[in-house]
């Protein structure tokens, strides 16, 4: 893909920017905590854009005052899954929202092979198109290793 050089997946906030530094992550988390959102760390090795529900790393973290605790978990998660996608999400429980308000990737595999285009021939010579990550050819846990 010419528009996405190097096949970096672009999901959530800041994904077109260079990777955030720990300091920048801290500032973003601080913003989320200031708004009273619950911040979680999640990981996956399935980069498909429709893969919405990632695994949560550890327990959800409520009632935190300071970003240091969350950054600690982010670093723990990086240590455990150095070659997975890791994202930080901030959930807003206010009535009417009840949804993640922030989500950004904080860790990605060293080598992201990207997606292949899959064509499906249907009735009457019509074509169905979809994409499929190259990484998901391998079973879970063995991708990106």
């Amino acid at each position, binding site marked *: 893909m010419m528009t996405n050089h190097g096949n970096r997946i672009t999901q959530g906030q800041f994904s077109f920017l260079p990777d955030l530094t720990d300091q920048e992550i801290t500032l973003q988390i601080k913003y989320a905590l200031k708004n009273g959102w619950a911040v979680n760390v999640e990981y996956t090795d399935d980069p498909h854009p429709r893969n919405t529900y990632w695994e949560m790393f*550890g327990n959800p973290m409520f009632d*935190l*005052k*300071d970003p*240091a605790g969350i950054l600690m978990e982010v670093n723990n998660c990086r240590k455990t899954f150095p070659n997975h996608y890791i994202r930080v999400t901030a959930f807003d429980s206010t009535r009417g929202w009840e949804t993640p308000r922030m989500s950004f990737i904080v860790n990605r595999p060293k080598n992201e092979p990207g997606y292949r285009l899959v064509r499906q021939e249907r009735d009457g010579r019509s074509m169905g198109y979809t994409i499929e990550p190259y990484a998901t050819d391998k079973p879970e846990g063995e991708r990106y290793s």
Partner: protein
Amino acid sequence: MSDSKNAGTAARLAGQADDAVDLEAEFKASNIQEVLDKLDRELIGLKPIKTRIREIAALLLVDRLRKRFELTSETPTLHMCFTGNPGTGKTTVAMRMGEILKRLGYVREGHLVTVTRDDLVGQYIGHTAPKTKEVIKKAMGGVLFIDEAYYLYKPENERDYGAESIEILLQVMENNRDDLVVILAGYKDKMDKFFLSNPGMRSRIAHHLDFPDYSADELMAIARLMLASQNYRFSPEGEKAFAEYIPLRMKLGHFANARSIRNALDRARLRQANRLFAGKSRKLTRLDLITLEPEDILVSRVFKEGQPDSEVG
């Protein structure tokens, strides 16, 4: 060539020595005096504690100045252990500590998270670590206050999960020094025993503060402060009666310093309400409602039978 280099170094050193900083101005800018004054005003007695807080404040201030000259030193550890008899103000001081350390710029948020064994130690294998970590994460940027800390370690049960919790705490106290301050509190003898079996804990705590018992005069001052905060006051005779009450109560068993005083005042308020109710034929003024008379205090069993009113502690 080496001469000119030396000369350059000397000039730089001299230059550094010249642009002196004003300690006084820095002190004023930090609002520390205000915090210390508030501490003096609102906490009676506790000389050694106040001295130590003053020392810590001075250290942090000097550290900040040193940083300006790029004289780096490691962040001082401020983990503390409060020991003392019941009711000597351990929890009260811990609550203040968060605010004080925030003013001094040592912690970022300055909130206090109070926990006991139940909040740290789990009930089954694998439950303790996440539980302890959750508490630690909540306390980051502030103060973690562990009340009755000696319960964490139960030597008589070797399968107890308390040791695991202590392990995690120690690790965090060492590695995340910038992120949180841990304060342990408990009665002196039990804490001594706790440290004997956990030498690692003892060495990681820089400040061991022992809270002294209050004298009768100090307790009287505390009583006055407590009443004022609840919009009550003694009549002159009432004050005399309470001054007699304090030494008598101090001699009896289960005396818990300021906590006993608070209980005594609560009972006096109860009796005052009863007295006002009994004499309800007459109109009450504002003064009647806020004044504690001697008869509210003298009925106490401390005077009659020489034993505390029905209370524990």
